[in-house]
């Protein structure tokens, strides 16, 4: 990181009318919180075919915050992320995003969701991150292509660019997904189990990337299993077990009592 030369122009106006200055990848700028949160959830529930997988979630994601979503298996964390991305309609309650937020949300899905056997190169797969700018029909201009190479270098996959997606290892696949996320260049980053089945060397490197983006003022929300990582890097935590158990500063949210409640709650709901 820390390259100069290729900058991503980003100008945005928050609801309060304050112009947020340009953020360039690789430069550190002071964060400025605007008054409105990135996303507000009110007693929201998400699920499939009428059955709620996660419910009773209320709270706000502040702009520029770094929140972890934790909880036991089957707690509905992925479902909540998908709801926040906009793939699911709330079964109950409401979810509000700040103005213009809808298109500035980038999502890193679980690696399993992608069709690894599809015959596409790493370069092209990462390039789909530019969908927002390029869409289904616009040509890839030179600067866009350069951006793709830039993000590939940032995650260390520049030499793998010509290989098929199916030939990548687990760790490489995660890095490719990060590259795609980076290309999307969004203000709000939602990551679903970004370090699953990844070795510690890679997860450290990727975590550094994530922190870097957070320092640029982007809002980060990540579903994580590794509580030690949560405690180390994430200021806020939302603890789920079907329903919301706790949402607040990490130390608070992850106290023993809450964790026990989370384990118990999930068994109840089954």
């Amino acid at each position, binding site marked *: 990181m820390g390259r100069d030369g290729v900058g991503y122009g980003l100008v945005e106006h928050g609801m309060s009318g304050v112009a947020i200055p340009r953020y360039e990848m690789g430069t550190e700028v002071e964060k400025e919180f605007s008054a409105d949160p990135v996303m507000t959830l009110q007693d929201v529930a998400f699920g499939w075919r009428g059955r709620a997988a996660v419910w009773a979630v209320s709270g706000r994601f502040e702009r520029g915050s770094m929140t972890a979503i934790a909880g036991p298996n089957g707690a509905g964390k992925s479902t909540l992320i998908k709801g926040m991305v906009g*793939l699911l309609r709330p079964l109950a309650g409401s979810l509000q995003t700040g103005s213009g937020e809808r298109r500035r949300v980038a999502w890193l899905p679980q690696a399993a969701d992608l069709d690894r056997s599809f015959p596409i190169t790493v370069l092209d797969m990462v390039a789909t991150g530019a969908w927002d700018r390029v869409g289904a029909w616009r040509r890839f201009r030179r600067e866009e292509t350069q951006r793709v190479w830039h993000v590939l270098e940032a995650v260390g996959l520049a030499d793998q660019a010509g290989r098929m997606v199916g030939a990548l290892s687990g760790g490489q696949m995660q890095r490719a997904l990060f590259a795609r996320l980076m290309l999307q260049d969004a203000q709000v980053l939602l990551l679903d189990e970004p370090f699953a089945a990844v070795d510690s060397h890679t997860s450290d490197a990727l975590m550094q990337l994530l922190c870097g983006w957070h320092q640029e003022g982007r809002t980060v929300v990540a579903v994580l299993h590794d509580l030690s990582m949560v405690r180390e890097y994430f200021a806020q935590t939302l603890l789920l077990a079907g329903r919301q158990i706790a949402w607040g500063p990490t130390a608070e949210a992850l106290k023993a009592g809450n964790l026990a409640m989370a384990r118990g709650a999930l068994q109840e709901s089954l």
Partner: protein
Amino acid sequence: MTLLDWTIAPFNDYAFMRRALAGTSAAALGAAPLGVFLVLRRMSLMGDAMSHAILPGVAAGFLLSGLSLWAMLLGGLLTGLLVALLAGVVARLTPLREDASFAAFYLISLGLGVLLVSVRGSSVDLLHVLFGTVLGLDDTALLLVTSVASVTLLVMAALYRLLVAECLDADFLRACGGRGSWAHMTFLVLVVVNLVAGFQVLGTLMVVGMMMLPAAAARFWQPTVAGQIALSALLGVGASIAGLLISYHYNLPASPAIILTAGVAYLFSVTCGPQGGLMHGLRPRTFSLKEE
């Protein structure tokens, strides 16, 4: 007889050979991108089911207006699309998955088609709908199949990125605001249209072979989607040429000869193709110790 005589002379001497080649090549070109995406999306059997779904519509068109091409086309289009739609709806709203619901609908439509054919008595013309009259393509038929192929290629070129993105990661595309489902629906419509337009050339039973076999074979040679489409088109045209020549020199019926040639190409690809072919799986692998 020289090789040149063997391959070129029949096409040179007879107009029906040239027309047959034009018709089958057009069908192959239109079918290539569709077939590749059907294979990639694991919808190959669905393609086969759709070709059966067309039958009652064509039969109904025939019942109502005789051998009117437009009536049969319209009928086939309607029932093909209807089955595609219904199967999708059933899969979405009930526990039955798409493969079972498709199977159910295509069996129903096959039974219905046979019933409708029987009502009209034994109808040889309808049998030609099933097997095609590739050696007797008139100007209308040629025009139809070539325009359908042209339109298909244009539309697929336009939808290419959408379809690739949708196959690769449908949810991601949706999250980015891409219209994946519209692309999918358009794609299905194109499949039905090509199957219906192709029935004159190869018959409804075998036109799906022209869609699937070259695409399935191409998969073993080309690692990228674009490469597979190009190779699939080439294989389709090649099978047409070879099939027609075989029919000419060895006195075998034309449309089965074409499809079986494509089938042989497929079998060869499965065994010898570099991208996952059986032979390549048997070769001892060299292990790389390089860190990821």
